């Protein structure tokens, strides 16, 4: 994907601090601080007239450690990617004067089947250095119409 866009390589650094837990008094706070290392690259098209973003290709990889249940690991990969697409493009809880203005599934858009990029690849890696991984566990690729470049 990077090769096709002639971007060269992209390196990212990040830090995440485990914070969270609900206040026992109010029940409020960050409910979940669950996270894993992973990276996703997408090829997107933007309609300049409407601003709508179309995802054309996607490659996702996660540092998953030893995969015990490949079927469920695959589903977790898929689910996480769709969640990510949703958060990046569609999902937002909109508050006005403290009132949620999109409290239903017609105003709060979830990712549906047609939002999945037509060519997607997913894999779980056992090693932390995902881009040099040789121990790719059960690469879960779907039929892709075009050959996919490796990131």
């Amino acid at each position, binding site marked *: 994907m990077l090769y096709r866009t002639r971007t060269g390589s992209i390196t990212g650094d990040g830090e995440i601090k485990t914070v969270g837990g609900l206040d026992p008094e109010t029940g409020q706070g960050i409910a979940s601080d669950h996270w894993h290392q992973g990276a996703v690259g997408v090829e997107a098209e933007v309609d300049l007239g409407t601003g709508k973003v179309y995802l054309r290709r996607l490659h996702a990889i996660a540092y998953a450690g030893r995969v015990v249940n490949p*079927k469920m690991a695959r589903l977790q990969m*898929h*689910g996480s990617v*769709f969640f990510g697409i949703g958060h990046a493009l569609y999902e937002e809880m909109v508050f006005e004067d403290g009132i949620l203005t999109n409290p*239903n599934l017609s105003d709060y858009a*979830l990712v549906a089947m*047609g939002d999945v990029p037509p060519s997607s690849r997913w894999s779980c890696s056992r090693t932390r250095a995902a881009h040099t991984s040789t121990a790719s566990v059960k690469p879960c690729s779907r039929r892709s119409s075009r050959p996919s470049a490796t990131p």
Partner: protein
Amino acid sequence: MQEDDRSSTVTCTVNGAETSLTGRPATAASAALRQQGLFSVRETCGLGVCGTCTVLLDGEPVSTCITPLYMLEGRDVRTVEGLEEDGELSDLQTQFTESQAFQCSFCTPGFLLSASALLESSTGDLDDAAIEEGLQGHLCRCGCYESIKEAVRSCAARSASRRAGSL
């Protein structure tokens, strides 16, 4: 579902058996069907956008949360409880478990019914675009779309080859 002087009785076929459903005519059909113990009919959005309350009405998938009870009069209703064939899971149901096409499975009955209607109406192989088109009205929060597509695709290919064999 309240029973009062505005209640009326609707007679329809539910999973092959003649059934009387009682309730106000404008009651959501999903509530009336759940009253019959058909808990695969699951109401989520109440707006007809998520597909979890889908049943087949004369073979066509409909959202029962926005279908009033009186519309069921004389119709043939099929829920996922009626998909089995002689006590065995249908081909599609078996394929769903083999492809692991669900995680929490809350949306699965809806997907199964729409997919079986899709398979019923298709004559050949189903491509991804046709499956997406047919199942676009269903939401799966776990994001199992890829495996659902895979399951429907395998079933379509199998029934296409069966048809070719019987010719």
